């Protein structure tokens, strides 16, 4: 019997330049391990992530999407993170019609929290592994 290969999810990360992307750097320079399943994309602000980018990732077959922003009160652009959170709540409701609402996250990780970054990425990857592959991955007609 051949050994079945463990499911390795693809998770897209939209990380804000000022906090979460810097935290990712800190995690790296501090030699903290986080899964290679995360494909980070640096953005100027979590508030600049239009839902269409998250949707496009999911409908193209990404297994999960995480948006990382500054902690409340610390947004470099004052309130981008709060607006991003509202958008995320709309997105989750829309995605619930497709059964994909548990594949998206928004997390506040400050530039100083390299350890939190590594922990959150591990958690998210574990959760996506439990969910299994995105059912849209093999759908050609969407």
């Amino acid at each position, binding site marked *: 019997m051949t050994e079945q290969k463990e499911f390795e999810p693809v998770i897209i990360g939209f990380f804000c330049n000022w906090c979460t992307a810097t935290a990712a750097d800190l995690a790296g320079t501090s030699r903290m391990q986080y899964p290679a399943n995360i494909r980070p994309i640096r953005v100027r602000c979590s508030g600049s992530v239009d839902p269409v980018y998250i949707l496009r990732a999911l409908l193209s077959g990404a297994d999960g999407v995480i948006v990382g922003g500054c902690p409340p009160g610390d947004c470099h652009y004052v309130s981008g993170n709060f607006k991003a959170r509202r958008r995320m709540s709309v997105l989750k409701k829309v995605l619930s019609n*497709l059964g994909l609402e548990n594949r998206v996250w928004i997390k506040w990780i400050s530039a100083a929290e390299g350890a939190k970054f590594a922990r959150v990425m591990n958690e998210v990857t574990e959760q996506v592994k439990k969910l299994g592959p995105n059912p849209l991955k093999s759908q*050609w007609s969407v």
Partner: protein
Amino acid sequence: MESNAILPVRKEGILGTIRTFLAELLDKRLVDSLFVPLELPGRENVVPTIVTSSDLITAVNPLAPIMSINSARLVSRLTGTSSSPQKVAIVMRPCELRALVELVKLKQASLDNLLLIGIDCPGTYSVNDYRRLIKENVFSLNDLLSNLTEGKEDPLLRNACQSCEYPVPLKTDFNLGLVGMDINTGIILEAKTEWAQKIFTALTLKEVSGDDRKAAVTRLISRRHERRETFFKHVRQDIRGLENMRSTLAACVNCHNCRTACPICYCRECFFDSPLFDFEARKYLSWAKQKGALRMPTDILLFHMTRLNHIVTSCVGCGMCTEACPNKVQVSDIFRLVGHELQKSFDYIPGRSLEEELPLTTFREDELSEIGL
């Protein structure tokens, strides 16, 4: 601050009463022009029109059950670039008024110098259904209006209208009320703002109480709520889950007509028409290779889901998207249900007030902790 008066219905009928009121506004120079639904010469269509003289008043017909376009779009066309320099009385259905309020909040229209005149809405038929009734000479305005005032169902009404919980306008200067009235003898004119009060005084109308009507309006709306719940039950079964959603959208050809007809979708350059969607051949071929096949045109689900994300919190449920669909995809059912759920979660009713901020432009710091921490 609200004054009410009964406008008597005489032998010219209810339309005569409404026309007389509007003509008076023009003739007494209380407004400079009207923006009203006007019958085309063959009567088979009724279209939003700017009218500057009362000569055409006999063609004014805000009660015809037809909405070929949500006229909020056109008020946006009229006032989006600069506000109106003259006083214009705008006669609209409740869903058009609500869409207009949303467009004002989205900075796509200006209410300066616009006198909003709402009207209790008997609902509308599809454009071709209405045309057929007129051509066959079988349309009865009386039946239509008594269906509204007596709360009876009319299976020919568009889906969106049958379960509409806003048959009475929310935000207006004047409202022409039919519900709770004996429409053979009179309709009620409600003056709701300072400007309307001034006109009310200038027209020397006799003030009456509007209390009888209130109970009837409440009854009608609660019946509509029941109907909406039944409607939503079916819609939930139709759209929940990937397979159901896919089947609901199966006939979509990505023509974007629903977006064009939508009064809320206002972007001049839609993301979906941008060069970001001009892909090279090798891109399509590589996607096809990944999945074994690729439906063309691509991104149908993405289009609808994105439009939901962008505008559903302001969706007024007018149903123009479904009307515009060449293949009868029930787009508006999706938007009504998802919109209702989301608007409720933000305690937001599109078109209720100009002061309430759009859910996606505002926030509270201490909210939604279950979504993001």
